[in-house]
């Protein structure tokens, strides 16, 4: 039986976040990995403001790091991969992780320059080869995702976080392989702020030892069909849906979350062609976004 534990936050103060982090971490055996380190892996893929719920609240990451660091013999690191939108160095700086590493003993882990370990992972239906960054292969990894809708996978709550730390644009199979290979020791879901088409100060955190259970629960919370999420569908022939949720009411949380249609990238081809046709007929000028090519970089 998989249990997801939760804690409500009365407010988002440092004290509340720390108490909640402690209540979760006390339940899990978060022992350092072979390199003597626990690696926190938050969602920090773009400099969205944390109050949008689209990235992990850095203050929650700080709280988790503080709790772990207070335990003896635990080195804590925070790792974020670069994405196609921004390099990890700037993303983490803008989100305040530089301050975290400067003000504490937490290490910043550079996944981009880390050596990679080629691993062939045998899944139920296929074998997938992935190159896992060394710190994730050796450390005791704790994904710390935010609860958010994801345009590509419906939900991204730990499993996708792991997948994207290994492959920039992972396939569902690569996500499963990353999860299997990295085998996180626990997953802490940050619900201090959430995003389901609209931001919300949702004031909860959740955790479990089984990242698949967290992802399944998160899918239900954001209204994504776990059966329809390609990386979750009949995951590896096992039932990893949480059979118990303690400490919070998943039903109440799900009911409280806004259900707004997430913004989608517009296909502006029609607009571009239409405007060019209009400009050709009228003699008008064309806005640069419809001209294509060239920018100010």
């Amino acid at each position, binding site marked *: 039986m998989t249990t997801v534990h939760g804690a409500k936050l009365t407010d988002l103060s440092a004290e509340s976040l720390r108490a909640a982090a402690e209540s979760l971490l006390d339940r899990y055996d978060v022992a350092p990995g072979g390199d003597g380190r626990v690696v926190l892996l938050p969602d920090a893929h773009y400099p969205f403001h944390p109050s949008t719920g689209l990235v992990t609240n850095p203050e929650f990451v700080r709280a988790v790091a503080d709790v772990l660091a207070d335990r003896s013999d635990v080195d804590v690191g925070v790792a974020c991969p670069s994405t196609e939108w921004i390099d990890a160095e700037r993303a983490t700086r803008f989100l305040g992780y530089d301050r975290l590493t400067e003000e504490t003993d937490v290490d910043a882990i550079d996944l981009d320059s880390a050596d990679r370990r080629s691993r062939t992972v045998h899944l139920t239906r296929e074998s997938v080869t992935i190159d896992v960054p060394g710190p994730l292969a050796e450390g005791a990894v704790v994904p710390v995702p935010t609860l958010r809708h994801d345009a590509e996978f419906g939900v991204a709550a730990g499993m996708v976080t792991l997948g994207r730390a290994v492959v920039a644009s992972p396939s569902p199979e690569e996500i499963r392989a990353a999860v299997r290979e990295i085998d996180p020791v626990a997953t802490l879901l940050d619900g201090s702020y959430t995003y389901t088409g609209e931001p919300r100060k949702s004031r909860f955190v959740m955790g479990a030892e089984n990242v698949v259970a967290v992802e399944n629960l998160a899918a239900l919370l954001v209204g994504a069909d776990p059966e329809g999420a390609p990386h979750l569908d009949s995951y590896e022939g096992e039932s990893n849906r949480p059979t118990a949720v303690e400490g919070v009411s998943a039903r109440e949380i799900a009911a409280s979350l806004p259900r707004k249609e997430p913004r989608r990238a517009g296909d502006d081809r029609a607009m571009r062609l239409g405007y060019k046709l209009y400009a050709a007929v009228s003699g008008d000028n064309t806005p640069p976004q419809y001209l294509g090519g*060239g920018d100010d970089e």
Partner: protein
Amino acid sequence: MNELQIGILGVGNIGVVHLQNARTVDGVAVEAVADALPENRRRAETFGVGRTYSDYEDLLRREELDAVIVALPPFLHAEAATLAAEEGCHVFVEKPFARTAEEARRIVDAADRAGVRLGVDHTIRYQTEMQRLKERYDEGAVGHVPLCVLSRINNGPFGSPPVTEPVPTWQLDPEATGGGALIDLGVHLFDVLEWFFGDVEVCHAETTRQLDLAYEDAATVTVKSGETGTLATLNCGFYQWEEPPDVNMYFRLDGITDTLRSEQFMPNNLLAHAGRSAVENVAKRLTGGEPDYFEPTYFYRAHYRALRDFLLAVRENRRPPVSGEEGLKTVELVSDAYDAAGFDPGVETETETETGTAADGGERR
């Protein structure tokens, strides 16, 4: 009347707007452009530009031009505008006119020595709703205006979800930009306030950052007009998700008899406005007329008006409506606002001395 031969330094997104607009002004020919990016140069060639350069200094030295548009990043404005003036060109500069008051003065001094005109692309005063608001204000429609609020907030260098563009680089470097929301958006707003109320001075300012950026992404400034006594609150910010065609911008005049809002003079629906004006433009063309350039976009039309006014002023040998003096004043006001807020973006500029150049922080940025 001889044709005005112009060059454009920088044909990225805003530069290509100026390129298209310049081509529509009677008696103006775009002879050459310069841009470091080959794709920008290729794009300019599709508009019939005969000569392109990768280095704007080469363009200025080789071309015989009457005027130049500077649409380069802000850290190049002073250098490019000064060089252009020294080459005898009238110069139209994108905002901000300069990164610091010292750079702005350098451009103005160079233009004065060379006897050329300067213009600055302060477009907000050219937006239709602002022009109508100004008309009503000038008519005395609400009496004296003791208080007003002017605001412009956008997403700055970041995108809203879903992200479609990489995060830019130099746009996040205050050394390149001159600062954050104040220098990028505040300059426009200071220009509007001076346009409405005459000389204003900064009374108070505060800046904040929502992320760990090297500059401010939100600022509020209180200014007072020495001429009218009006107290204005200026808000500018780089932090909000903006969904075109709607923009977060407003000007509210709380007068003695009533309140005027800029939104009152905007189209109710910008998409409907785009459709309507597109149809009208096609009709004009079919009947042998000229379109209202960029009118469907609503906001780009202000760039057309600003450049047209500058080029017409140059042709008619008169002071442009938004000249170097206006540009200098807005940058000085930004500098005063940074000082009042106790925030220094940390832009170092060079001042020429008799013995060479030296870093000069200066009393005013």
